[in-house]
């Protein structure tokens, strides 16, 4: 079971349904959507005007202490202290992950792309960060969602699926393996 916690998504609320469907399809697990039991403002860094993704991870962990895995999905701009921004973050081999749609929009980059692109990007980021919670590190294959992306174009260049090796890493325990 994966718990998905949407917060401060604004107009991007509509992405939640399709992302849930994508996660259920890929991981073969039920996804339960829950409102946050925490105040997201606690992660705001006033000086930077951005939200600290590591603080979100801690809030999510506490909030979903009874869930085996939790994914926060938000529309605010995320950062980690050393970087100007992140698309999302996860505990490597842990329980919590968070993704943001803030930098997934095309307009601020001067790119023209079809409207469904935003959803594709959100799906890929959700898969990618959850992949990290399964202990997966970045994959060198161009054909894998675990490939590292530092630009929105990098996200577009990779597919919304795991390569064969990485898929093995996220398979539920006891899943048939050759």
């Amino acid at each position, binding site marked *: 079971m994966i718990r998905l916690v949407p917060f401060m998504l604004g107009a991007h609320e509509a992405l939640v349904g399709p992302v849930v469907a994508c996660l259920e399809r890929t991981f073969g697990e039920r996804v339960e959507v829950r409102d946050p039991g925490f105040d997201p403002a606690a992660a705001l860094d006033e000086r930077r005007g951005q939200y600290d993704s*590591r603080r979100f991870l801690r809030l999510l962990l506490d909030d979903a202490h009874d869930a085996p895995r939790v994914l926060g999905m938000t529309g605010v701009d995320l950062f980690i*202290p050393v*970087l100007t921004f992140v698309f999302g973050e996860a505990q490597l081999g842990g329980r919590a992950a968070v993704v943001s749609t803030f930098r997934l929009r095309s307009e601020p980059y001067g790119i023209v792309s079809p409207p469904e692109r935003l959803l594709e990007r959100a799906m890929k980021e959700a898969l990618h960060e959850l992949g990290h919670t399964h202990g997966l590190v970045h994959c060198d*294959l161009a*054909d894998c969602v675990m490939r590292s992306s530092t630009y929105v174009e990098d996200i577009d*260049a990779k597919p919304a699926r795991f390569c*064969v090796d990485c898929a093995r890493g996220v398979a539920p325990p006891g899943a048939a393996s050759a």
Partner: protein
Amino acid sequence: MKRNPARLLIVDDEFSMRDSLAAWFQEDGHDVVAAESAEQALRTLDDHRFDVALLDIKMPGIDGVELLERVRVIDPAIRVIMITAYATVETAVRCLKHGAFDYITKPVDPDELTRLVARALEDKQHSEGVTPAPPPSPEPERRVERERGVADAIIGESPAILHTLELIRQVAATDATVLIRGESGTGKELIARAVHRESPRRYFSLISVNCGALPESLLESELFGHEKGAFTGALYRRKGKLELADGGTIFLDEVATLTPKSQVDLLRVLETHELNRLGGHETIKVDFRVVCATNEDLEALVADKRFREDLYYRLNVFTIEAPPLRNRVSDIPLLAEHFLRRAAPTVGRNLTGFSPEALERLCAHTWPGNVRELANAVERAAIVAAGPRVELHDLPPLNGGGHPAAQGSLEDVERQHIQRVLDEHDGNITRSARALEVDRATLYNKIKKYELRR
């Protein structure tokens, strides 16, 4: 799967900085050790070796500058990257004189940080004479190929297509620039993908650019990327496609349509393998293989001075001709069956094949739109066919003998035909392109070429 894990040492007194740096590189698969002081770092160095160290400059006790000097004595091979706040850039520059590899000002862009550490690692491996790990065994790759094989397979057994496949195989193993030529719809893009898929670069991206689809200014930003604020509305920096192709292959489709300025800019990158983003000062090194395609007469364009001769010679290293469908009639039944199977999910049922009369008609047609036209014809037939097989009357009207209906040269016929279709669709490019069964870029090019009305 990660090929090249490295050993990283991170030293910062601030927990959140240290912790976020460590997490960032652990996600890359590196082995990371974090220390909260220079003293702790030095103790760690007693019994550990590292490839790269990231040192915060401002720390209580022994500061980053002094630590740099001590680290370099303990292990001269280690590459050291200094981390500085804006206020101490001068100090950081002084560190370079003391043997630091480079420095970052926090907060730093994710791409910059990742690239810098990759460069430091490369630099270390080079100086040690270690060649980067060879690509993994071909086994996982074949799996990838099987997965996508259906969509990307080049179908055919005619001598013409077998020759093409042989050329692909030969050139894929090299890093040579490939120019793919052939009429519209002959499968040039498919060939480009096959070259990449069978090359040692297959583990990296194949990035496609349609040179004819965008106006010059957008194309330049697409190819080279831009910095934040390079033009109105550029709120973030953006990587160009040439940069995204780093390690992989760039596919320049419709390369003959490049404007003179873009030709110059592209030539420079191909010669130096370096580029600057629009509005940027940093020179970025890129390593990609070039595959390009055209359906135009490049030699004529060169003679006309519409295509630069120097660029022509740089691109025209190894040529693959995509044969027109009329020169490989024996492949038509195979291709038709292939497209019929491909249409099954769309039409919701499996048709068993073609009646002999239908096949005969397909083989008799000259297919000016080549494989794309055949694919469209078969798909349409599959939709209307009652089944179980496709009959002659299911096929869309085809000009059996293939004599152009109008007088004049083939070009005249093409010009008149396109003009008529454009008029029928009120100059709407998307709808006209669909009716003509070409992509929009091709139609734009034809309009330019024939100076047609819209």
